[in-house]
C-alpha cells in the first residue's frame, strides 16, 4: 500500500513539475500579417533567444524584439523568438535556431556570454549577436552589441544635478543638494550607468552629493522600496535606479515619499503603471536600434563578425527618454544643459568615464 501510493504521488508531482517547466519554454509569436506587395523580399531569417526575463519584461527582451519586428516590417525578414525560462534553456534554444537556419541570432543578455562562445564555433555560417555581451576573444561569426550606458547615465546626471538645486521648480525638491542612485547587481552595465550619472551630476554642480545603494538583485521590488526610502531619508530628492524590477519598488518609494525618479533601459514612464509626474525621464538603451542595424547589415550583405560594437549617443544607441508630464515644467535651463551635454559628448569634447 505504502509503496504504491508513494509511487502515485511521486508520478503526479513529477508530472506537475514537468508541466510547469514546459510552460512557455518556446513560444512562437503569432505570424505577422503578410503584405507581399510592399515588403521587400529577402531570405534572411533573424531570431532571438530571450534571457530568463522573457518577452514582456518591458526592457531588453522586449526592446530586442521591437528591433526584430521593425526589421520584419521594413526589410521583410522572417523572425522568430525563443524564450528561456531557465539558464539551462539558453543552449538548446540557440542550437534549435541555428539548426533551423536562422542568422543572425541574437542572444539577449550578459548571462548568455558563455553559451554563445561555446555554440558559435559549431555553426560557422551563422552570425551570432550578443546583446550586452563583450566577447573576449571574439569569434569571426560573433558580434558583441554593447552600449555606452555611461553616456545615458551622464545625461540623467545632468538633469538631476541641475534640478536638485532648483527648489522653486517643484515642492518635492529640497535644499540638501543630494541625489541618489539605486543599483541592482554590481555588474558592468549598472556600474557604467552609475559612473556616468555621477559624472553628469558633478559636471553641472560639483557640490551636489551622489549617494549609491546596491540591492544585489534585479527582481526584488521590496528591497527597491527600502533602498529608495533609505536614500530619501538621507536627503535625496531625485533617485536614479538602474535595477530592473527592483527599480519599480524604488519608483514607488519616490512616489509615496514625495521624491522624484529617473528610470532606466526603456522609457519607464510607459512601463511603470501610474508613475505620472514622479518620473523625470529615463536613461534608455536603444537595443532595438542596435538589433535593427545588425539585421539590416545582414540583409545588405555587409554584416561582419569578429568584433564588439559599442553603441553610444553618437550612434543613437543610448539616450534620454522624453520628459512626458514634466515637459511643461522642466526649467529651460535644465533642457539646455542636457542638449549641450549631449552635443559635447557626440562631438567628443567630453569623455564620460566608465567607472567611478
Amino acid at each position, binding site marked *: 500500500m505504502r509503496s504504491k501510493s508513494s509511487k502515485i*504521488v*511521486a508520478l503526479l508531482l513529477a508530472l506537475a513539475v514537468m508541466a510547469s517547466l514546459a510552460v512557455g519554454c518556446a513560444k512562437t509569436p503569432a505570424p505577422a500579417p503578410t503584405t507581399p506587395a510592399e515588403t521587400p523580399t529577402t531570405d534572411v531569417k533573424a531570431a532571438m533567444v530571450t534571457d530568463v526575463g522573457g518577452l514582456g519584461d*518591458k526592457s531588453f527582451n522586449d526592446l530586442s524584439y521591437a528591433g526584430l519586428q521593425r526589421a520584419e516590417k521594413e526589410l521583410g525578414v522572417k523572425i522568430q523568438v525563443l524564450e528561456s525560462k531557465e539558464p539551462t534553456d539558453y543552449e538548446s534554444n540557440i542550437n534549435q535556431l541555428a539548426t533551423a537556419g536562422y542568422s543572425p541570432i541574437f542572444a539577449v543578455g550578459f548571462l548568455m556570454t558563455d553559451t554563445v562562445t561555446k555554440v558559435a564555433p559549431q555553426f560557422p555560417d551563422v552570425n551570432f549577436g550578443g546583446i550586452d555581451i563583450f566577447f573576449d576573444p571574439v569569434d569571426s561569426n560573433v558580434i558583441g552589441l554593447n552600449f555606452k550606458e555611461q553616456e545615458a547615465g551622464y545625461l540623467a546626471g545632468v538633469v538631476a544635478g541641475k534640478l536638485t538645486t532648483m527648489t522653486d521648480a517643484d515642492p518635492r525638491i529640497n535644499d540638501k543638494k543630494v541625489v541618489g542612485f539605486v543599483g541592482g547587481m554590481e555588474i558592468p552595465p549598472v556600474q557604467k550607468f552609475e559612473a556616468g550619472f555621477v559624472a553628469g551630476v558633478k559636471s553641472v554642480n560639483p557640490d551636489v552629493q551622489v549617494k549609491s*545603494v546596491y*540591492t544585489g538583485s534585479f527582481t526584488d*521590488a*521590496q528591497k527597491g*522600496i527600502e533602498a529608495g526610502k*533609505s536614500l530619501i531619508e538621507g536627503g535625496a530628492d531625485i533617485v536614479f535606479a538602474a535595477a530592473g*524590477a527592483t527599480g519599480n519598488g524604488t519608483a514607488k518609494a519616490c512616489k509615496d515619499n514625495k521624491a522624484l525618479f529617473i528610470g532606466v533601459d526603456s522609457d519607464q514612464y510607459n512601463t511603470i503603471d501610474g508613475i505620472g509626474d514622479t518620473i523625470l525621464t529615463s536613461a534608455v538603451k536603444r537595443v532595438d536600434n542596435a538589433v535593427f542595424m545588425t539585421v539590416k547589415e545582414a540583409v545588405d550583405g555587409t554584416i561582419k563578425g569578429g568584433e564588439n560594437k559599442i553603441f553610444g549617443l553618437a550612434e543613437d544607441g543610448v539616450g534620454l527618454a522624453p520628459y512626458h508630464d514634466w515637459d511643461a515644467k522642466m526649467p529651460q535651463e535644465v533642457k539646455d544643459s542636457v542638449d549641450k551635454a549631449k552635443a559635447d559628448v557626440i562631438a567628443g569634447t567630453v569623455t564620460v568615464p566608465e567607472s567611478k
Partner: protein
Amino acid sequence: MFSEVVTPELFASAVRLATPIALAAIGGAVCERSGVVNIAMEGLMLISAFAGVAAALLFGNAWIGVFVAVLASVLFSAIHAWASINLRADQVISGTAINILALGVTGFLMETIFGHPGTTDTVKTIKPLMDLPAGGGGVLGTIWQWVDVVFLSYTPLVYVGMFSAVFLTWAMYRTRWGLRLRALGEHPRAADTVGINVLRGRWVAVLISGFMAGLAGANLTLEQVGSFTENMTNGRGFIALAANIFGRWTPGGAYMASLLFGFADALQLKLQLFSDVIKIPPQFFLMLPYILTVIVLAGVVGRAVAPASVGKPYKEKG
C-alpha cells in the same frame, strides 16, 4: 554619523523587511512542531503574492486580494499535506515540487491573465493602520517620533505578524492543542496511543502554515510593493525556514530571528549611504543575512534541537 544611521526609519525598515519572512516562519514553526517539514513556504508565498494581486486588480479591493491570497496558499499547502501526511511521500520532495510548481504556475497564469510575463499592473497598496500626526519639537517630540515610526507606522498585516507570534507561542506552550501539537512532532506513536488523531493534527498544522505563508505573500505585494513580479520572493521562504530553526521551532523565536535578518538587511541598505566614510564594499553588507543563516544552520548559536519526529511520515496502525 551615528545619529544619521540609527534613525527610527532604520528600525521601521527592519520590521517591514522582516515581516514577510516572519509571517512565513511563524507558520513554519507550527508546521514543523507537528512533524512536517514545510520547505514549500517559498512557493506558497509566491503563489499567494500572485493570487493576491490578480484578485485585487480584478475586484478593485486589496482586502479581497488578501483573502484570495490566503485561500490560494492554503489550497496549495493542502497538496503538501495530502502528499506528505496521507500518502507519506518524502516531505522535502513534496515541498520542492510545490516550489517549482509555483514558479511555473505563476509564470503561466501571468501570461494567460495579463497577456505578458514580467510585472503586473499596480494595485493601490493597503494603508498603514494608524496615521498619526507628527510630533512637535523638543525631547517629547523626538520621543514621539521614535514611538510613532518604530511601533505605530505599519500596515495591518505587520501587526497580525506580531500578534500571531505572541498568540501562537502562548498556544503552543499553554494550551491543550499546543501540547498535543508538540507531541505529534516528538513521538507521534505515543500521541496516537493516548487517542490523539495524528493525521488530523498534522493536517491542521500544515494548513496553518499555508495560512501564514499566504499572509506573507499578501504583505509583500498588497501592503508593500503593489505589483507582482515573477520570482519576486527571492528566497524569502528559505530564509523563513532558517529563521524558524534560528528561533528553535517556536513562533516567538522565529519572529525574533526574522527581525534579525530584516535588521541586517535594513542596516546594509543604510550603511551603503556612508560608503565614503566606511570603506567596506556593499557586498559585505549584502552577505550579512546569509552569513547569519549559515552560522545558525551550523549550530554555532547554541544547539538547535529539532522535534524528534520531524520529517518522518506517520503510519497509523491499521
